[in-house]
């Protein structure tokens, strides 16, 4: 591993990594069962440098912003490297957003360069949102079919034809490296300005617990624009000389195959996928004959007893060989993130000798705040603070539960173009997370719901009510507002979070089946994970500010006095 203390920026560290590990494999890419690409660090540089030169020739310079909207693939990482090489600021966008949302964030970020792939570009072109992204000068699109219309873009592959060496543009630790959108496709985009220092420090902390080395293989499934995959699916493995495996399809059967084929060392998953894996394994265990099942249960019990204080990978692989073989036999840990994972799921895997590195974090804090250090494994907590991370519980009640505040060199510098929001979120150097937690007597953090009005789905999606309200604009009601149900009625729980639509009917009108159908129809226009789960009919005028904005916190307090079970109508 490179000594990151010596490096001022992501770009400088990556540049040296490409030389230090030149002969090692860094990328493998497969489409279903077909391997499409395998690159060494040397070959990676042979693509990254010409691209950097093309950016340079196009006038891309220090501090300029470049967005990537791509699925997980080798060209994502090559493009990111070229952007950092030129001292640029990377804007990684979620490829699952709608084209309108992507244009909105492209405009908000001020990106002058866009790197994307053809299927996404085709949809972006069809959207009217393009007019808003006035800063955009250069667009590079990968895998464009031979005679396809480029609509003002250039072929990414042609950008690799530059033959002159690019000029490396140095950056300092305190300069912005990326703008990562933690939310905000609605009214108020939250673009977290992450510094080079944030990544360098986080990487040192994480690799101290979960090291990478040449020969290690990370299976990249979480979108690379996500803070976790960017760290453990790009920067972390690269500065250690490890390899990243990309799959062009995330069908469960091909993911399962990839574990075995590539002998995966680490993988990051969202809780939904982890639970799906658990379900699949459980079904196989249940199908064992009674005799085999008894033996299997005994082996699991033995493994559990022998790994109580710490994981013993070699031993677990011998005891439960078949289970481990299904994961390729080299798996050291499954990293789970993006949302809260239920303890029973974590324990299920740990008992099989597959440690799950669960933790707690948010983009604003630079990926992870706490991580389970496995000494011992504690499924009922999200682990201890990472090295360099100061965490305190503020305004704790008698039960010790309060808001989690974080101070660290990994905390973002602020939200892009939102000084007020930044000042509300980072106070005296402490990041107010809006999450509720408590430390137990051994220093492990436990989570107990949120103070903020948002939900996180099992797929790791942060949903802010403000972002989805526009879809209900045409409703024939006096006023409406969307809330996270747990914000109104705190549950001290991280599971089963749902959104509810609160409506105030016009005077004299009653809630009808027709209105319910109308709401249901509009709800269907939202992506499935953004939908509301219930309706609350409220009889009073919503409290508003002088500028007529809804005072959400006051309204939530009033609603909180109602009986949750009785007032939420199903859709």
């Amino acid at each position, binding site marked *: 591993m490179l000594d990151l203390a010596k490096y001022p920026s992501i770009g400088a560290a990556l540049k040296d990594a490409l030389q230090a590990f030149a002969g090692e494999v860094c990328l493998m890419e497969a489409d279903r069962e077909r391997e499409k690409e395998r690159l060494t660090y040397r070959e990676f540089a042979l693509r990254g440098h010409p691209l950097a030169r093309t950016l340079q020739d196009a006038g891309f310079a220090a501090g300029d912003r470049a967005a990537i909207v791509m699925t997980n693939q080798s060209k994502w990482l090559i493009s990111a490297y070229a952007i950092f090489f030129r001292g640029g600021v990377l804007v990684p966008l979620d490829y699952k957003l709608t084209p309108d949302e992507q244009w909105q964030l492209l405009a908000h970020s001020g990106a002058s360069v866009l790197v994307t792939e053809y*299927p996404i570009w085709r949809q972006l072109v069809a959207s009217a949102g393009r007019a808003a992204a006035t800063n955009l000068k250069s667009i590079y699109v990968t895998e464009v079919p031979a005679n396809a219309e480029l609509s003002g873009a250039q072929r990414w592959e042609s950008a690799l034809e530059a033959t002159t060496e690019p000029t490396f543009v140095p950056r300092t630790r305190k300069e912005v490296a990326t703008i990562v959108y933690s939310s905000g496709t609605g009214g108020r985009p939250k673009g977290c300005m992450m510094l080079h220092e944030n990544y360098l420090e986080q990487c040192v902390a994480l690799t101290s617990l979960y090291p990478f080395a040449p020969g290690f293989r990370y299976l990249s499934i979480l979108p690379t624009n996500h803070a976790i995959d960017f760290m453990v699916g790009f920067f972390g493995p690269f500065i250690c000389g490890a390899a990243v495996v990309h799959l062009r399809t*995330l069908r469960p059967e091909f993911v399962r195959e990839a574990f075995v084929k590539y002998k995966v060392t680490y993988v990051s998953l969202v809780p*939904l996928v982890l639970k799906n894996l658990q379900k699949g394994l459980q079904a196989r265990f249940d199908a064992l004959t009674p005799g085999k099942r008894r033996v299997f249960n005994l082996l699991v019990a033995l493994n559990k007893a022998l790994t109580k204080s710490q994981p013993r990978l070699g031993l677990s692989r011998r005891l439960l060989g078949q289970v481990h073989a299904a994961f390729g036999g080299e798996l050291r840990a499954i990293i789970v993130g993006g949302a809260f994972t239920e303890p029973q799921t974590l324990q299920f895997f740990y008992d099989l000798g597959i440690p799950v590195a669960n933790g707690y974090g948010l983009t604003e804090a630079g990926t992870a705040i706490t991580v389970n250090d496995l000494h011992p494994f504690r499924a009922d907590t999200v682990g201890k603070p990472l090295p360099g991370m100061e965490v305190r519980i503020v305004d704790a009640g008698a039960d010790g539960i309060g808001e989690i505040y974080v101070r660290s060199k990994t905390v973002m510098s602020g939200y892009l173009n939102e000084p007020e929001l930044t000042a509300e979120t980072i106070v005296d150097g402490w990041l107010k997370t809006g999450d509720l937690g408590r430390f137990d007597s051994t220093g492990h953090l436990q989570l107990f719901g949120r103070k903020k009005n948002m939900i996180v789905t099992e797929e790791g999606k942060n949903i802010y009510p403000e972002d989805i309200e526009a879809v209900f604009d045409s409703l024939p009601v006096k006023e409406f507002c969307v809330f996270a149900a747990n914000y109104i009625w705190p549950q001290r729980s991280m599971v089963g979070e749902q959104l509810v639509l609160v409506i105030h009917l016009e005077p004299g009108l009653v809630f009808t089946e027709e209105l319910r159908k109308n709401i249901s129809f509009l709800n269907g226009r939202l*992506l499935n994970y953004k939908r509301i789960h219930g309706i609350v009919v409220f009889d009073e005028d919503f409290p508003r500010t002088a500028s007529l904005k809804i005072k959400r916190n006051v309204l939530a307090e009033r609603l909180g006095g109602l009986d949750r079970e009785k007032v939420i109508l199903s859709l």
Partner: protein
Amino acid sequence: MRTVDQTTQEILDLASKHFNVPAGTLAPDDDFFKKLGIDSLQTLELLSRIENHFGIELPDYEVQGVSDFRTLASRIQSRL
């Protein structure tokens, strides 16, 4: 060559079978997430089944944002 309506009907049949829903309860414009109560991963499972049935490969991006059977059928039809 199948018509879009035939493709749609075959998809509805496959979905009914895969998720154990009585035949005839699903309609082309149904939101399959809602109607079947499934998540994105289960949708991918259904997709694999559909691919095997029609003998095609449908890249993940083709079904990005699709949530009703009719649209799904049109994406498949274009690859038949």
